């Protein structure tokens, strides 16, 4: 990780992207480049389109106009191409979305075996490696509903990592958690960031944003209002709307 950020490969390129829900213009002229190993935090008031934006990157939502490139591949309607991109882009959700009928280990084995065609042994090795990384290897044979919310979210992170993705997307990963469990999930994410994973996180955790992000993207009403490094963003934001938002979220 000696190369300066500016010289690194662009992993995700979003160019002039627009999206509508019916008449509602939910994303307006989005431009964003994310380089390899970069940590991006997207914040903004609810309804600003930040979740929709990252959900466009793995095509859980379709963009209507403009281009998205993941590792040079344009996102189109072609199913093969979408599956290919999804296997390179890991995602964690607010509600964890673990598969309740499968054990923790099986949750982690499913995609590597089916998509990557790994053998049971190879997949198990990788799964155990990542379960150890998120510090729950001893729960491997339990079912999701036997785990706490924080543990479930860490399993969800491990499950995504088992695909050895190039990018990780986090969609408000701590919003559904009890306060005492937020820390353990953020810790796992910080650790991941420290290892050079390319990450895009939608989160309201401003402490995490300041500590981990290379750049913070502030969105409001479907637009990117401001992109800045954390110091400038928190201490000397350019835009009025950013200032208003920050006084609101940092008050408590």
């Amino acid at each position, binding site marked *: 990780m000696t190369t300066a950020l500016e010289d690194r490969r662009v992993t995700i390129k979003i160019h002039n992207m627009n999206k509508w829900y019916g008449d509602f213009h939910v994303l307006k002229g989005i431009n964003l480049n994310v380089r390899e190993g970069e940590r991006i935090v997207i914040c903004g008031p609810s309804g600003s389109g930040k979740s929709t934006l990252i959900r466009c990157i793995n095509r*859980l939502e379709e963009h209507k106009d403009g281009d998205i490139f993941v590792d040079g591949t344009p996102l189109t309607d072609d199913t093969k191409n979408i599956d290919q991109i*999804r296997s390179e882009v890991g995602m964690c959700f607010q509600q964890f979305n673990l598969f309740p009928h499968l054990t923790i280990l099986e949750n982690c084995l*499913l*995609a590597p075996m089916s998509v990557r065609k790994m053998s049971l042994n190879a997949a198990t090795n990788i799964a155990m490696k990542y379960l150890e990384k998120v510090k729950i290897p001893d729960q491997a044979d339990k079912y999701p509903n036997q785990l706490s919310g924080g543990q479930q979210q860490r399993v969800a992170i491990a499950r995504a990592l088992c695909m050895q993705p190039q990018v990780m997307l986090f969609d408000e990963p701590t919003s559904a958690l009890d306060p005492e469990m937020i820390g353990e999930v953020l810790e796992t994410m910080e650790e991941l960031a420290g290892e050079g994973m390319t990450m895009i996180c939608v989160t309201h955790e401003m402490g995490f944003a300041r500590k981990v992000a290379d750049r913070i993207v502030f969105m409001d009403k479907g637009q990117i209002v401001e992109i800045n490094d954390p110091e400038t963003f928190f201490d000397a934001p350019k835009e009025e709307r950013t200032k208003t938002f920050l006084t609101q979220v940092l008050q408590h």
Partner: protein
Amino acid sequence: MEFDFLAIWDHRDILIAGVLTTLLISLISIPIAIILGAGTCLLRISPKRTMRWPAVAYIELMRNIPLLILIFMVFYALPFYGIRISGFTTGIICLSAYGAAYFAEIFRGGVEAVPKGQFEASRALGLKYGFYMRRVIFPQLYSYVFPPGSNIALTMIKESSLLSMITVTELTYAASDINGRTFAPVETFATIALIYWGISTLFLKLAGSTQARLGAHDSNSAIALR
């Protein structure tokens, strides 16, 4: 009036053969209907319209014509086109096709009840549609589809009595047969009703205990991964 159940006892071999045929038809038709129903459901909920509409047409057709008419069409009308099928096979085909349409709708209701996040997580992992439906979504359906599913299965068992109309020697046919020999309709049909009732009760008990076994997520044995 006196009840003469002895007359029926004398013809118990016909009765037993009838019970066995009814059970055999049900035992073959119900699993076929479930599998066919799952496939129809997959088409019915497909994002592609060209996949959806044949499934919709099939379900509508099956639900809107009486089963007996379907049976007559296969048994009496198809021979005009050179397709001649035995009564027993006709029964299997018609009952399966009929049940499948209902199972498809039950499965669809179940799939819609599974949280959206399960689909999104599957897609985000790069799993293919057919694979995640089979391995992620369908296994979560048990609790949603079991009660209405066992109802349809039960209906299939009872509706198999229609096959007596095309000379399949199942339970109802056996009853008519015995009635013809003994002229004791009260005893005969009371006995048959009791037997149907027994089969139904037994089936529901079995379904109930199976559901209880499958229902507990944390205690069920892991579903093999391949």
